[in-house]
C-alpha cells in the first residue's frame, strides 16, 4: 500500500508541476469531445439532438465543477475532490435518470467516476472504490484504465472489479459485414472478436442490406465468452458494372447507386479487347448492391460523355453481371465576344481567359457563363449540345445593387417586407442592367466602416456629398457593382408608391423618382427610365444652315471644320436647295433627314451659288454630343453607369475620353466641382486636338470649373488654351465655337 502511495504521490508531484497544463487538458478534453463540440455549436439532447437550455446550464455547471474538482484531485489534498465529484455525480445521474443526459455528459460522468474511484483508492477506501468503479463499468463495460497513466495497483483493482461484472460476446455471419445490435444498441460489425459486455440477458440482432435480419437471445455470464454464428438469407440482387472510362455514375431508377472505379482485372483484358474496349481505360467490376426484384432503369452518366440509358429486370436475388458499357466523349466549343472586349471569362466558376476567345473541348451540358469586366458583366446559363459550336455576343451590362427599402416613418416599417418584394418584382423587368441583391449585412458592415448608414446615401439637406461619393466608390469595389438603388417608403401612400434613389459609383448625389408599386404597366416610370440608354452621338453633316423668309433654299452660314460638308467641297454662302430630292424649306427638315440616316450614309445635295446649281454627294459622319447640364428628363446617375462602362470598357480610346468629358458634365450637374475638375483634366489630356468636340471643349469646361473654384488665373490659362484649338465647339460639332465663348468670358 505504501509503495502504491509513493508511486501515486511521485506521479502526482510530476503532475502537480504541470497543474495548469492539466487543468487546460481537462478543458481541452471536454471541449475536444465531438459531442461536446456539437453541444457547444448546437444544443443537443441525450441522443445528440436539441438540448434544452436548462440542461445546457446543468452541463455548464458540471463542467465548471469538474474543472474545480480536477484541480483539487491533482493538488496536495486530493480527498477534497471527492465531495466535488459527488456533486457532479448527483447532477449528472439525476439527468440520466430523467433520460436527459447528453452523450458528452456520459463522457464527463465516466471521467468523474474514474477520478473519484482513484481518489477513494488513494485514501484506502477500497469498498467505496469498488462501488464507484462498478458504476463506471455498468455505464461503459468497455472502459479501461491504462498502466502508463494510472497506478498499476489501481488498474489491477479496476480490472478485478470489472471481471465480476463483464462477460464476452463474439458474432460472425455469412456473408460478413452485418451490423450487430445488443438490445437495439449498436455493438459492432461482423465478424468480430469477443467484446466486453455487461453480464446479463440480451437480444442480439444481425442485419445486412439485401439480407433478411436475424435475431438471437444470449445470456452473458461474468468472465464467459458467448459466440453467435449466423448464415444470412439473401433478399435482393447485386449488379456488377464495367465501364469505359472509369468514374461513370450508375443511376438506378433515378438514384445514384455507385461510381465505377479501379482498373480491369488483367485476366479480363483479352476478353474486353475483343469487345472493343481499351483495358487501360476500363473500370474494375463494380458492385451496386441491394437491387430489389423487378424491372429497373439504369443510366450511365459521366461529365463530358454522352449518357446511356438501359433497362434491367431482376428476377431473383443473386449477382448479375451487367453488359459492359463504353461511353462516347461529348464535347462542344464556345466563341465569345464582348462589348467592350477584354472581359474575363468565368465558366462554371473557373477562369477561362478574356474576350474575344474561342474555347474548345468544353463538356456538353449546362454551364454557368459569366463574362466579367470592370464596366459590368454578362451572366447567362448556357446548354451546349455535343459537337456544337456556339457563338455568343456578350453585352457587358452595368450591375446595379438593390440595397433594400427604408421606412421613412414608424407606420411604414410594418410594410417593409412587402414593399421590398414588390420593388423586387418591378426591378426584375429591367433589361439593360444586372440587378443584384447583395447581403444587407455586408452592405451595412461596409457602410459602418465609413461611419455611415444606408439612409445617409439618400439625398437630404445638409448631406455630405464627398462622403457619399467615397462611400459609393468603396461599396462599388466591395460588392463588384457599378451602382446602387435604395427604396424609401413614406407614410403617405404606403404600398402604392416608393421613392427610388439611384446612385452611380463615384456619384455624390442620388437621382430620385417616385415609382408606383401598383401600376401594372411594366414599361411605366422608373423601369423605363432605368432601361433608357442615352445617345451621346448623332449623325452629322457639318452643314450649318439658316432659315430665311422669302429665300429659296437654305443659306449655308458655315461648314464644320474637317466635317463631311467641308470634305464635300461645300462653302459658306452657298444655298442648299434640296437633299435626297426633297426641296428644303427649313433647317429642321435637313436635320431630320440627316438624323434618319446612319453615319457613312450618302446624302445627295443640290447647292446653288450665283444662280448656278451643282450636285454634291456628301458622306455623312458622326458627332459626339455633350450631355445637357440640367435636363430634368435625364437620370444622371443612370447615365453615369453607361459612361463609366465606356470609360472602363475601352480605356485609352476616344470614346472613353468622351465618356470622361460627359462624366465631368454629370459631376458639374451635381455641383461636384472636384470630380468635374478631375474628369475634365483627364478628358483634356486624352481627347484629340481637333475642330468640333475635343480637347478644346474639355479645356473650356475645365476653365469654367476652375473659375467656379476661384482659380481665376488658371481658369484664364485654360480658356486661352481652349480658344487656341481651332474650330473647337461645345454641345456637339455644330455647337457654339469655344473661341467665341471664351471671348465672352470675363477677363478673357
Amino acid at each position: 500500500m505504501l509503495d502504491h502511495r509513493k508511486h501515486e504521490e511521485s506521479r502526482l508531484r510530476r503532475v502537480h508541476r504541470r497543474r495548469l497544463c492539466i487543468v487546460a487538458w481537462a478543458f481541452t478534453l471536454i471541449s475536444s469531445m465531438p459531442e461536446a463540440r456539437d453541444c457547444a455549436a448546437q444544443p443537443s439532447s441525450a441522443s445528440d439532438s436539441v438540448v434544452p437550455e436548462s440542461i445546457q446550464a446543468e452541463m455548464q455547471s458540471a463542467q465548471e465543477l469538474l474543472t474545480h474538482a480536477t484541480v483539487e484531485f491533482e493538488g496536495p489534498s486530493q480527498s477534497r475532490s471527492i465531495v466535488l465529484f459527488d456533486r457532479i455525480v448527483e447532477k449528472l445521474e439525476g439527468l440520466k435518470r430523467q433520460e436527459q443526459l447528453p452523450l458528452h455528459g456520459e463522457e464527463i460522468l465516466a471521467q468523474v467516476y474514474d477520478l473519484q474511484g482513484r481518489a477513494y483508492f488513494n485514501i484506502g477506501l477500497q469498498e467505496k472504490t469498488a462501488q464507484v468503479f462498478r458504476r463506471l463499468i455498468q455505464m461503459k463495460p468497455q472502459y479501461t484504465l491504462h498502466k502508463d497513466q494510472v497506478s498499476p495497483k489501481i488498474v489491477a483493482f479496476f480490472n478485478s472489479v470489472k471481471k465480476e461484472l463483464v462477460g464476452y460476446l463474439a458474432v460472425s455471419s455469412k456473408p460478413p459485414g452485418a451490423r450487430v445490435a445488443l438490445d437495439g444498441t449498436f455493438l459492432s460489425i461482423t465478424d468480430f472478436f469477443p467484446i466486453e459486455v455487461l453480464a446479463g440477458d440480451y437480444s442480439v440482432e444481425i442485419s445486412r442490406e439485401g439480407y433478411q435480419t436475424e435475431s438471437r437471445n444470449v445470456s452473458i455470464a461474468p468472465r464467459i465468452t458467448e459466440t453467435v454464428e449466423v448464415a444470412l438469407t439473401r433478399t435482393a440482387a447485386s449488379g456488377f458494372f464495367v465501364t469505359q472510362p472509369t468514374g461513370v455514375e450508375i443511376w438506378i431508377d433515378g438514384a445514384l447507386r455507385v461510381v465505377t472505379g479501379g482498373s480491369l482485372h488483367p485476366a479480363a483484358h483479352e476478353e474486353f479487347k475483343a469487345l472493343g474496349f481499351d483495358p487501360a481505360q476500363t473500370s474494375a467490376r463494380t458492385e451496386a448492391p441491394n437491387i430489389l426484384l423487378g424491372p429497373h432503369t439504369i443510366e450511365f452518366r459521366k461529365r463530358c460523355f454522352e449518357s446511356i440509358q438501359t433497362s434491367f429486370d431482376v428476377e431473383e436475388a443473386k449477382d448479375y453481371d451487367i453488359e459492359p458499357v463504353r461511353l462516347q466523349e461529348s464535347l462542344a466549343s464556345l466563341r465569345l465576344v464582348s462589348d467592350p472586349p477584354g472581359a474575363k471569362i468565368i465558366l462554371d466558376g473557373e477562369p477561362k481567359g478574356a474576350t474575344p476567345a474561342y474555347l474548345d473541348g468544353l463538356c456538353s451540358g449546362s454551364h454557368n457563363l459569366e463574362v466579367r469586366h470592370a464596366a459590368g458583366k454578362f451572366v447567362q446559363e448556357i446548354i451546349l449540345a455535343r459537337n456544337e459550336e456556339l457563338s455568343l455576343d456578350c453585352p457587358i451590362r452595368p450591375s446595379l445593387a438593390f440595397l433594400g427599402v427604408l421606412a421613412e416613418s414608424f407606420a411604414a416599417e410594418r410594410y417593409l417586407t412587402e414593399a421590398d418584394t414588390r420593388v423586387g418584382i418591378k426591378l426584375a423587368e429591367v433589361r439593360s442592367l444586372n440587378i443584384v441583391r447583395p447581403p444587407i449585412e455586408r452592405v451595412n458592415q461596409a457602410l459602418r466602416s465609413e461611419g455611415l448608414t444606408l439612409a445617409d446615401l439618400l439625398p437630404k439637406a445638409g448631406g455630405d456629398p464627398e462622403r457619399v461619393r467615397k462611400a459609393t466608390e468603396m461599396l462599388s469595389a466591395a460588392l463588384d457593382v457599378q451602382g446602387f438603388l435604395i427604396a424609401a417608403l413614406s407614410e403617405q401612400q404606403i404600398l402604392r408608391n416608393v421613392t427610388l434613389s439611384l446612385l452611380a459609383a463615384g456619384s455624390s448625389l442620388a437621382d430620385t423618382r417616385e415609382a408606383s408599386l401598383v401600376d401594372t404597366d411594366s414599361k411605366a416610370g422608373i423601369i423605363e427610365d432605368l432601361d433608357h440608354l442615352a445617345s451621346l452621338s448623332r449623325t452629322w453633316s457639318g452643314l450649318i444652315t439658316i432659315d430665311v423668309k422669302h429665300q429659296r433654299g437654305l443659306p449655308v452660314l458655315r461648314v464644320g471644320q474637317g466635317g463631311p460638308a467641308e470634305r464635300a467641297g461645300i462653302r459658306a454662302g452657298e444655298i442648299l436647295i434640296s437633299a435626297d430630292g426633297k426641296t428644303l424649306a427649313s433647317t429642321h427638315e435637313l436635320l431630320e433627314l440627316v438624323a434618319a440616316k446612319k453615319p457613312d450614309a450618302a446624302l445627295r445635295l443640290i447647292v446653288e451659288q450665283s444662280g448656278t446649281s451643282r450636285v454634291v454627294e456628301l458622306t455623312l459622319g458622326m458627332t459626339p454630343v455633350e450631355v445637357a447640364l440640367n435636363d430634368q428628363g435625364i437620370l444622371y446617375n443612370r447615365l453615369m453607369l453607361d459612361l463609366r462602362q465606356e470609360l472602363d470598357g475601352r480605356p485609352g480610346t476616344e470614346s472613353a475620353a468622351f465618356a470622361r468629358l460627359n462624366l465631368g458634365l454629370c459631376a458639374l450637374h451635381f455641383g461636384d466641382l472636384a470630380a468635374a475638375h478631375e474628369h475634365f483634366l483627364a478628358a483634356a489630356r486624352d481627347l484629340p486636338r481637333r475642330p468640333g468636340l475635343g480637347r478644346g471643349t474639355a479645356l473650356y469646361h475645365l476653365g469654367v470649373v476652375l473659375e467656379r473654384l476661384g482659380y481665376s488665373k488658371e481658369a484664364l490659362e485654360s480658356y486661352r488654351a481652349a480658344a487656341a484649338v481651332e474650330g473647337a465647339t461645345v454641345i456637339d460639332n455644330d455647337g457654339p465655337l469655344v473661341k467665341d465663348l471664351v471671348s465672352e468670358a470675363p477677363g478673357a
Partner: protein
Amino acid sequence: MKAVWKSKGCLRGMIRAAAAAAATLGLGASMLPAQILPDEQARRLLEDGRSAIRQGKLKQALDNLNTIVTGFANTDVVDDALLEIGQAHFRLGDDIEKARAAFGEVARRYPQGNAAAGAFYYLGWLTLRNAATRAQVEEALAQFSRLCRLYPKSEWVPRALHASGLAHRRAGRHAECVQFQRRVVFEYPRDDVAPAAQYEVGRCLALGGKPAQALEEYQRLRNQHPAGEWGVRALDRTTALWRLYGGETPSFTLDPGFAFTAGNVTKNVRDMLMTEDGVLWIASSKAGSVAAFADGRMSQSLSLMKPQALAFSAQGDLIAAGESAVRVGSRDIHTFAVPDDREEMKPLDRISAALLLMNGEWLVSDLRHKAIFRFDPEHKLLDRFGGRSERVVSRLLLDDEGAVVVLDQRERCVEFFDPSGQRLRRIDLKGAGFDLRRVVDMAIDPQRNLNILDERSGVWILTPEGRLLASIGGDSLGKPQALALSPDGAILVYDGKLDRVVRFQ
C-alpha cells in the same frame, strides 16, 4: 336685418380668429370644430387664391390670400400666400408698390421658406422694370445675384439668370448678357425660360456686333422650337440679320407685290409703327385717326386730331401723339400744360412726339416751345428733358436698352438719353457718304441700327456708331413721309406722292 348680418359676420370672424389662435397655439386638429387642420385650411385658401389669379379675379384672389396672412399666420404656406399676393398686385392690379411690399415681406420674414427665392426674383424684376438709372439696374442685378447665391437649387435660378442677362443688356454689357443667357441655355435647357434666354443670346450677340454668331444662335433656337413662339421670332431675326449681313452689303429690294393703300388712312400719313406680331399702325392726319392693320385688314382705329408721331411705351402700349393731346392705346387721352412767361399754365398745342416712361413719367416734345418737357404721372411739369437747349424734335422713341432716342431736326442729329435725361451719345446725320437734310422719320432695329427716312433720298441705315451701312429706295420713292420696320427686318415706307405704303425686303 343689418344686426343679423353683423352678427353672422362676427361669428365668422370669431371662428376665423379661433382657428388662427388654435394655429398659433399649435393645437391639434381635434380641437377645431371643423376637424380640419389649420395647415390644410390654409392650403385650400392658397389653392383658391391661385385659381382666382389664373382667372384674373384680383379681388377674390386677394381675399383668399389675405385671409391666410391674417388668420393663418403660423401655417407653412403664409410665405407662399404673400408671394401670390405680390404677383396678383403685379400682374393683375399693376400696383407695383403693393407688390413690392408683399415681396419684401417674404424676403424679410421668411428668408428660409419656399417662397423667398421667388420674392427676391420679383424684387429684382420690379427694380429692373422701373429702372431709370444705371444704379437701379445694378441694384436689380444684385437682387438676382443674391437669389442665385442664397438659393442655388431653387427653381427660380434660371429666371434670375435670365433676368440678370436682361439687366446687363440694359446696362449695355452685351458680352455679360450673353454669358448669363448662355448659362440658362446650357444649364437649364428644359426650363420654360430657356428659349427666351437663347433668343437673348442671339440678340446680345447681334447688339455686340457679332451677327454671324447671332444668326447661328437664332437658328439653334429655331431648330429646337421650329413651330413655337420663339422659333417664329427667331425666323424673323435670321431673316433680318441675313438681309443685313448675309452678303457683302445689305440687300434690300422693293417688293413689287406689296403696295398698301387704305383710303384716307393712307393719306397724309405722319407716322407708322409695326408691332412684334406684325400689326401695322398708321397715323393719318387726313383721317384724323390711328389705325391698326393686321394681314392687310384694319383691326382697330383710334381717333386723334392731327396725329404727329407714334411710339411704344416701355410696357408696350401704343403712344399716339396728336398736336394737342396724347393718346395711350385705346384707354385714355392726356393733355399737358406748361407755364407761359406770366407763369400761367398753357396747354401744349404743337406736340410733335410723346413718350411714356417705365416710371410713369411723360416726355412730350413741343414745336412751339422747341423743347422736350418731362411730366410726372399726374402731368405735373418736372423739367425740360435733356438740358435747356432748344430742340426741334419730330420723334421720341425708346430703344431696347431703355434709352430715350430723340430725332432733332434742328440739330440734324439723333441723340440717346437715359430716362433721367443724361445724354448717352449722339449721332450726326451727316457723315462719310451721307448728308441728310430733310429727315422725317426714324426707326431702330434690334441691332440698334438707325433707319433714317429722308424726304429726298429715301432710307438710310446707319450703324450704332453712325457709320453708313446702306441706303435704300432713293430712286423708287416719290415723297417718303414715314417708315416702319417689320419684325423680320423689312422696311415699310409711306410714299406721300402715291399715298401708299411700299416694302423693301
